[in-house]
Structure formats: structure tokens, C-alpha cells
């Protein structure tokens, strides 16, 4: 029996998605940047650029460097701040019929608390992604993401101040991803998303200087996919909450690998820079895969890896 339309719907806690394909924070702006190329309403969700309590100007340039099958970035969380996000960026997204996930970041637990409670009152915000894993800021950021107790404290703080679904975005720059994943699960996270970028570096030999002004930056792109896949698989075996797989996804084939490894949804990141239409291609490709595998629903694919 040929299936014309396999069911692509997934749920991440109380966050309902028409398909498992989301955009990764920091790679899709505030959505509007891609509107002339991508049909935004087809996406599972849009995860916007990370938002802080006050605007941040970001790091000095150079901020990006190309590496083999990947790129390094040290943007430094440049963003317009929560106030301007709500007044200037969110109104556009209101008219796009797609869930908006707001990525939040802070230097202190109080800042996460402030952001969580402010966004909790805004109906257009479908869910919160808590960024405890950016490697490019000196304070907070990755420190929260590499210490299980701090990760737990931040997660609990957001949980207590926000009734919306909470996804905690994990750093790969840890020895054992399952420890952090379990810690944030215990603290009340509805889901975890992983991985954020891997700390890396590039050197200009002629100048004998680092390529990035920040010296180190986050590695992303297809180069990191095998690491991301391994971590998603490990985390899926360790926690009971849904997992959102991220890391080097450039095609439907890549996305399906993450679903098989146990991710309930995926985020496309760096690939948006290279092929702005990639998210739509991934959605179409997942559907074709399910048809080819005679699966009626994407649910049959999630965690279906035979080991």
C-alpha cells in the first residue's frame, strides 16, 4: 500500500510541530531574513537568534573563518535584546503561521529568570530554548553548560518562571553529555537540544595570528555531524525527554540519521548559510524517506536504529 502523505507531526513536550524540521538559533536571523527565499510557514518551528536582557554588540571582527567542511564563528551573541526583539522582530513572525522558539542567554541566573518571565507573558512565543552552551562569551554561557549543577540551577530557574515548553541547548564541550542531559531533565526541562558548536581554532601562518579576533570560536557545519550524532544517540539512551538533534545537518539523509539515533526533531544550522532553501528540501526529503521505508509516520523512524 503506497502512502501518499506520511504523518510528519511531532511533539516536543507541549510544543506541537507540523514536521520535525526547525532552524537552529543564530543561523536564521529572526526569520524575516529568509522570507523571500523560504516558505516560512512550511517549517516545523523557527528558533530565533539568541536573546539577552540587554542588547549585545558582539565580538570584534574577524568573527568567522572557513575550515575543512565547516566554519568557525565567534559572533559573541550579538542581538537586539529582549525589548526590541518583542517590539521589532516578533510582530513579523506573528503573521507567519509557524511556532516561534526563542533562544535565551544570560551571564547570570537572574538574567535567565528575567528573560523567562518576560517571554512567558507573550502569546506568540511557543517555547523557550535555553542556551547554556555558547562558547564565545567569557562570562556565563558555556560555564552553565559544562557544570551539571549550574545547568540544573539555570533550568530550574527558567522552569519556575515559565510555563511554556523549555528546551535546554547543550554544549558538546563536556566529557560526558549524558550527565548534563540527565541533570537538566531532573530540573524540569521538557526537552534537550544538542549539540551547540564545538570549541575550535584556526591560525593564519603568514601573520602568525589566530584567524578569529576572539582567538577561539565554535566549529559548525558538516565537519561536526558524526560527533553530534554520537552525542544525540548517547543522550537518547540516557534521558526520557525528547531530544532535538543539531549538528551539521545539510540534507534529509543527515536529518534521518539523527531521527534514527533518537532525536524527535532536528535543527538545521550552518546549512542555511550555504543553501538558504535547505530546510524545505529536508522536509521534502524526510517525507520521501518515510514513503520509501513504508512508514506511515515519522514517529516510526524516531529511535529506530538497530544496534
Amino acid at each position, binding site marked *: 500500500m503506497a502512502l501518499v502523505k506520511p504523518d510528519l507531526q511531532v511533539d516536543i513536550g507541549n510544543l506541537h510541530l507540523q514536521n520535525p524540521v526547525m532552524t537552529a538559533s543564530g*543561523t536564521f536571523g529572526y526569520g524575516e531574513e*529568509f522570507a523571500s*527565499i523560504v516558505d516560512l510557514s512550511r517549517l516545523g518551528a523557527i528558533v530565533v537568534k539568541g536573546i539577552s536582557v540587554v542588547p549585545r554588540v558582539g565580538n*570584534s571582527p574577524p568573527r568567522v573563518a572557513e575550515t575543512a567542511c565547516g566554519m568557525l564563528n565567534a559572533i559573541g551573541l550579538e542581538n537586539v535584546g529582549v525589548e526590541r526583539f518583542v517590539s521589532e522582530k516578533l510582530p513579523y513572525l506573528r503573521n507567519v503561521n509557524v511556532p516561534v522558539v526563542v533562544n535565551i542567554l544570560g551571564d547570570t541566573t537572574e538574567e535567565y529568570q528575567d528573560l523567562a518571565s518576560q517571554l512567558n507573558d507573550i502569546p506568540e512565543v511557543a517555547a523557550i530554548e535555553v542556551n547554556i552552551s555558547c562558547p564565545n562569551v567569557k562570562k556565563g554561557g558555556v560555564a552553565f553548560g559544562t557544570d551539571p549543577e549550574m545547568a540544573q540551577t539555570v533550568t530550574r530557574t527558567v522552569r519556575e518562571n515559565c510555563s511554556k515548553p523549555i528546551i535546554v541547548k547543550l554544549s558538546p564541550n563536556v566529557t560526558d553529555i549524558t550527565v548534563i542531559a540527565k541533570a537538566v531533565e531532573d530540573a524540569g526541562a521538557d526537552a534537550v537540544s544538542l549539540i551547540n558548536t564545538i570549541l575550535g581554532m584556526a591560525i593564519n601562518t603568514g601573520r602568525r595570528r589566530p584567524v578569529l579576533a576572539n582567538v577561539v570560536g565554535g566549529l559548525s557545519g558538516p565537519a561536526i555531524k558524526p560527533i553530534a550524532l554520537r552525542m544525540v544517540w548517547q543522550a537518547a539512551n540516557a534521558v526520557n525527554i525528547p531530544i532535538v538533534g543539531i549538528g551539521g545537518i*545539510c540534507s534529509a539523509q543527515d536529518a534521518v540519521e539523527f531521527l534514527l539515533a533518537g532525536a524527535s526533531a532536528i535543527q538545521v544550522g550552518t546549512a542555511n548559510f550555504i543553501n538558504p532553501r535547505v530546510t524545505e528540501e529536508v522536509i521534502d526529503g524526510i517525507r520521501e524517506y518515510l514513503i520509501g521505508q513504508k512508514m506511515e509516520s515519522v514517529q516510526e523512524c524516531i529511535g529506530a536504529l538497530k544496534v
Partner: protein
Amino acid sequence: MESFQEKSEIIKVEQLTDDVIRLTLHSQAIAKATLPGQFVMIKVSGGHDPLLRRPFSLHRTDGKETVQILYKVLGRGTKILSEFCAGQKLDIVGPLGHGFTIKKDKPTCLVGGGMGIAPLLFLADTMLNSLEPQNIIVLLGAQTKAELEPLAGGFEKLGLVVETATDDGSLGHHGFVIDLMDKFETDPSREMYACGPYPMMRAVARKSEILGWNCQVSLETMMACGLAACLGCAYPRKYGSGYVHVCKDGPVFDSEEVLWL
């Protein structure tokens, strides 16, 4: 601003010198939408390495079906691009960015260096709709005569007078293109439009400031997306804190907007 992602067929590949190439692409949507000073992002590899698209300013368009880019083979990306032949297709995103603002009826000076000359031809062509040719001064510089001559030819065909400078003295003034501005110092205020390497842009900006002329500069920087999503192409602002972004706020800026380092 509307941008498009197209699979554009290469109509013509012209080898202007050993390492300077002009590509003509069939790209209807971009040809119709683009303005002088805007750019496109081109994927040169079908695979993951090199990963990122490469930015190219638009050299010319017929406004209907074709666009041209002009580039020098310098790094891996342009080396791969140089191996493409007519009939092949390139994945191209554009038009992108904020281009030149043409000041109608105002005497004008175009200053281009090396491959920075590329967008100025499109600009000159468009300008002639609203400016008399005698009101446009074109100052062009490059390393050698071999490189500069084919580029200057495009402006001459438009009926414009071109002053040239080369690093080795093989054509025109022996020295910097900026030196050519000296003999126009006593002119009434002109609008400057400049594109070239960073040190040249800085020099043009300073010279314009001394003369009290308004100056538009096209800047270049490493960028990953061209869509204002990655925020990688930051340039420090002159006033206030923070950065402008070359892909969206630029590539063309008023020289007073950015901090010259």
C-alpha cells in the same frame, strides 16, 4: 528587499588576463531586481569543501536576463570557479545588500582599484540615465596595464573619460589611483563612489573628508551567509558602539559611517 536563489547557466566565460575572468550568467530574477553596488553569493563547490558561498559584486546586467561578475583568481574558491565552462550551472543567491545611492545632477567621481572596479561599471552605466558624461570623472588603478586596460575599456565604451594609474607605471600615472584626485581638488563638490582594497578605501575616505566631498565606499569582508543571519561580517561603526554588517547595511557605506582603522 527581495532576494532569489537561482541555478544560473553560464553563458560566457571571458579570460581577460591570466587570472582575471568575466562570467556572464543567465539569471533573470537577479538581473531584473539588482541595483549598482549589490552583490551575489555563489556556491563554487557541489560538495562540502569549500563549504561557504563566495560573495561577488555585480559587474553589469542587461536588466532583463543576464548578469556579469568579474573576478581575479586568488584563493581556493575563485580557483574552482575558474574551472567552470559555458553551459554549466552555478547556484547563485542575490541580489544582496545595500548598493550605491546615485545623486542625480551632482558632479561625480568614481574611484576603483583592482577588482574593485567591477561594480563601478554597473554604477556608471546606470548613472548615465541621470547624469551627463562630462560630469563623471572615472579614476581607475590596478597593478599593471595588462590588468587595467580591459577594465577601463568598459567605461570608455560608455563615452566616459578614464584616468588611470598602475603600480608598475605600465599605464597612466605611476603610483596610487588616489593621487589622480589631486588635479580635481579645486573642483566644486563632487560625489565620490569608491570600491577597492581597504587601504585605498581609507585613503579615499580621508581625501574626501579633506575636500569636503561626500563619499560612498564599497567594503569587503569575510562573510558566511550574505543574508544578515550569521552576523559574521561586522565592521566597527564610527559613531556609537557596535558594528555595521557589510552584507546588509553595506557593502556600500557613507565613508562617515564606519570607523577607519
